[in-house]
């Protein structure tokens, strides 16, 4: 048991938690009856994926992905003497991986865009059916259908 924790849980702690959060979100998307609750669940579901990606870009002992001015000065010196294609002086393990950050900026924005549209739909559903509970909406639709 302890060996399992040492090998599988401790080094992957973030990844275990991301699965937990994601499942909380997914469960509420499917099981919750209230439309706003569903949407909150959907947002939590999406942030779990962000957690996965950002965790991938983490490097131990690395700093934020902005090159400091001291390093830049050293870089300028080396690149002034050599040609442009020469090996750069910036060490790649010094900075966190920027790619997942870029991807997740996109995903966050997509998330808020989806949330906005979904909330607009929720308001229209409330206006038409007078309720936010999904089962009541479905019942009223059924009644609507039988009237015709």
């Amino acid at each position, binding site marked *: 048991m302890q060996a399992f924790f040492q090998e*599988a849980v401790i*080094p*992957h*702690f*973030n*990844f*275990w938690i991301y*699965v937990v959060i*994601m*499942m909380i979100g*997914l*469960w509420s998307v*499917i*099981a919750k*009856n209230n439309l706003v609750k569903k949407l909150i669940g959907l947002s939590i579901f999406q942030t779990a994926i962000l957690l996965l990606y950002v*965790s*991938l*870009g*983490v*490097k*131990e002992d*690395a700093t*934020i*992905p*902005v*090159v*400091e*001015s001291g390093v*830049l000065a050293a*870089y300028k010196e080396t*690149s002034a003497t050599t040609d*442009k294609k020469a090996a*750069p002086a*910036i060490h*790649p*393990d*010094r*900075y966190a*991986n*920027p*790619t*997942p*950050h*870029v*991807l997740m*900026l*996109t995903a966050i*924005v*997509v998330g*808020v*865009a*989806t949330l*906005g*549209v979904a*909330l*607009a*739909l929720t*308001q*229209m559903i409330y*206006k038409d059916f007078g309720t936010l509970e999904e089962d009541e909406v479905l019942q009223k639709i059924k009644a609507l259908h039988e009237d015709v």
Partner: protein
Amino acid sequence: MKAKIFASIAVVITGAILLYAVIDFPDFGDPGSPPNAGVPGGAPAASRYYIQNTYRDSKVPNLVTAVLADYRGYDTMFETVVILTAGISIFAILRVVRRDDDPSAPEPVASDRTIDGDHHRIIVGITCRIAAPLIQIFALYVVAHGHYSPGGGFQGGVMLGASFILLALSGSLRETLARFSERDYTRLAFVGILIYAGLGLLPMWVGRNFLDYGALSGLFMTKGEEMARSHSMLGVEIGVAITVMSIMFAMFANLSTRGRLQGGL
């Protein structure tokens, strides 16, 4: 109840598959993992290229800004388009336009609150009025300084939009709309994308690829291609900020009034 059982089954299956794969993951924080360094024995990962060569290519110290606006600028353009699409979808779904010949349209709300004459809101209202320009100045700094520090078009744009949201929340939506009207924000949302895509289109005149900012050194009167890239990134970030600002405020204005743009919260 049925939904809950179904949800539990779905969650258990999905979770089991995900946990099954977690054991296979690279260690958390490992600098030698494939995303950080590339597959063992293969070419180095793209992220390594970004860290080492961004400054050479575009003289931008903030790697995230450089990757966002230059290397993967095509993604970012469509990310801005996603925001625009959401805004337009909300207009299409929610906006209620009163037409004179349409009796079913809602009546205009007679009592539109203003902060003057409402004692409960006056302190909050005045404070937020003072705070809003400061927020906007900081937001402009965030946009402009995104090359050198965390920040950029999205963050700055959301903050600009949030300053208008703050005004509308604390004071009245009507006063805010008088300053930033529906016509303005719909136009500006498109202007932002036009700046982005237009800047990307310019290199095509000289036979370079779409979004290849290096070709713009003549336009910006810079010496090399690096500074042209840097300047174009600023232009692109400004475009993003304009669109995001407009759509964020538009979303709030429509959602808080059920598409009537009258009354407010």
